[in-house]
């Protein structure tokens, strides 16, 4: 299919923006470098920016919403003249994952341009439990899977990957520990990540706190091996949750004749797991956030997570990345995600001084 000159230039601009110069991680001190290349085009605005993970629309995806419907929805959230950030889940939203056709990829870039979207984070998994609950896959197989995902993420224009490698349980429900070969698998892909300008980010999410044994393991590895930004952090705002709301008990309840959410809230541990100030020393390592939320009032305030305090810390301490909406309210099962994400973006616009 022949591209028009306009289409070619649009594609080239997106690709050029994605292939920025690698950061000087090898020699940079650990303190925040204001000029550290975040991998976005030079014209990107400073400060925290808004985005959406279309995981939020999981209940309708493939049933009453196509990928294009989701992207169209996002364009209703973008401030005129700017782009809205996008997160996809590779295994859900990339047609014929892991081998999308070149025709699909051409169409992908056309949609990003049409709907004012910048691809930010590519959610993917290294399924260490591929063949067994107790025995992880070989490190070599894990590295191959990870490298394939980094290359696909880069091909689709993403500069971050929300990389989920396997975990193993701890003595209590609240302790989730990286699997035995977690860090070996990551090490095997660091060079590829840097070459393709894709930052592998491990997500800090309930029941993991910003301070504790699991966080220590991540930071030990990141600092000893000097991996920032090619392996670094994504903070999910669920860690700041102060009270339960009308939210999914685990990630999903079946609305389809199956059973209701059954994981007890006690698996989350004692709330809150962390306070926004806990992010301050971590800002140099945070290259994306998940704007997790559970419940929006019609006044566009969130009732379970202290958004004003969270966003203030990000603004005051020089966070220049995106915040990707992830809705987990229980009304997600009755079409609630669409208005909820809109209300959350009204709230975030106000907190960012955009409205």
């Amino acid at each position, binding site marked *: 299919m022949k591209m028009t000159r306009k289409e070619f230039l649009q594609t080239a601009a997106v690709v050029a923006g994605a292939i920025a110069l690698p950061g000087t991680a090898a020699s940079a001190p650990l303190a925040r470098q204001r000029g550290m290349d975040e991998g976005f085009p030079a014209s990107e605005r400073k400060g925290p920016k808004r985005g959406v993970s279309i995981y939020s629309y999981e209940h309708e995806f493939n049933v009453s919403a196509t990928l294009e419907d989701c992207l169209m929805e996002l364009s209703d959230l973008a401030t005129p003249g700017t782009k809205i950030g996008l997160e996809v889940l590779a295994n*859900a939203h990339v047609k014929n994952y892991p081998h999308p056709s070149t025709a699909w990829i051409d169409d992908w870039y056309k949609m990003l341009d049409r709907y004012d979207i910048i691809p930010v984070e590519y959610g993917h998994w290294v399924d260490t439990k591929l063949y067994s609950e107790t025995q992880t*896959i070989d490190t070599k197989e894990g590295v191959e899977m990870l490298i394939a995902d980094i290359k696909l993420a880069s091909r689709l224009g993403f500069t971050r990957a929300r990389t989920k490698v396997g975990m193993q349980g701890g003595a209590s429900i609240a*302790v989730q520990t990286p699997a035995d070969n977690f860090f070996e698998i990551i090490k095997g892909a660091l060079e590829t990540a840097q070459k393709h300008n894709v930052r592998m980010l491990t997500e800090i999410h309930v029941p993991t706190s910003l301070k504790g044994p699991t966080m220590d393991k991540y930071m030990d590895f990141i600092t000893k091996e000097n991996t920032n930004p090619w392996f670094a952090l994504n903070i999910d705002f669920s860690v700041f949750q102060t009270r339960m709301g009308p939210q999914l008990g685990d990630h999903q309840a079946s609305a389809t004749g199956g059973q209701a959410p059954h994981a007890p809230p006690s698996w989350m541990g004692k709330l809150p797991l962390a306070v926004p100030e806990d992010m301050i020393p971590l800002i140099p390592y945070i290259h994306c956030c998940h704007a997790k939320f559970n419940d929006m009032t019609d006044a566009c305030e969130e009732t379970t997570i202290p958004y004003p305090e969270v966003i203030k810390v990000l603004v005051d301490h020089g966070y220049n990345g995106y915040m990707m909406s992830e809705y987990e309210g229980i009304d997600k099962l009755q079409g609630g995600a669409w208005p909820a994400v809109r209300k959350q973006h009204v709230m975030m616009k106000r907190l960012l001084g955009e409205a």
Partner: protein
Amino acid sequence: MLEMEAVQQRGFRNVYRDGQCIGFQIAYRSTYYRGISLSLSKGFRVLVDGEQFPPEAITIAYEGETYTQDEMAKAGHVQWNLDEPVILNIAKPGGLKLGVHEVTVNWSHRISYIGTMPGVPEQTPAAEAGGPGPTGATLEFGGGNNTRKLVLVR
């Protein structure tokens, strides 16, 4: 487009070979929020009108290939994408009668990024004859037992 429920009505029919009715098929869509490798499945069980079918009676067809449950457990590099249901073929000589049937499909899958929680059952047991089966398993993301009344016409 797919139907909202995990157990699809579209695709529900008897299966014939050489003029003989050898069983029936049910299309099942994953309601997990992402596609997974087939090998992450813990296996399918099917209950129809109180009749429990043994796991060996079920094969799984996806994108032109048919897998036994054992073969599916090894299919680490076959992606079950969300926009395609699997077709469960259930062996039953003579098939199902025309009309309304109560169909339960039990399915679950491993989750690599959550360490096993002590003391919590790993999987909802398959529905037994006479009821939808007990709950209590961990994190099945819409799997477990899914029951739906389906109408068979052929």
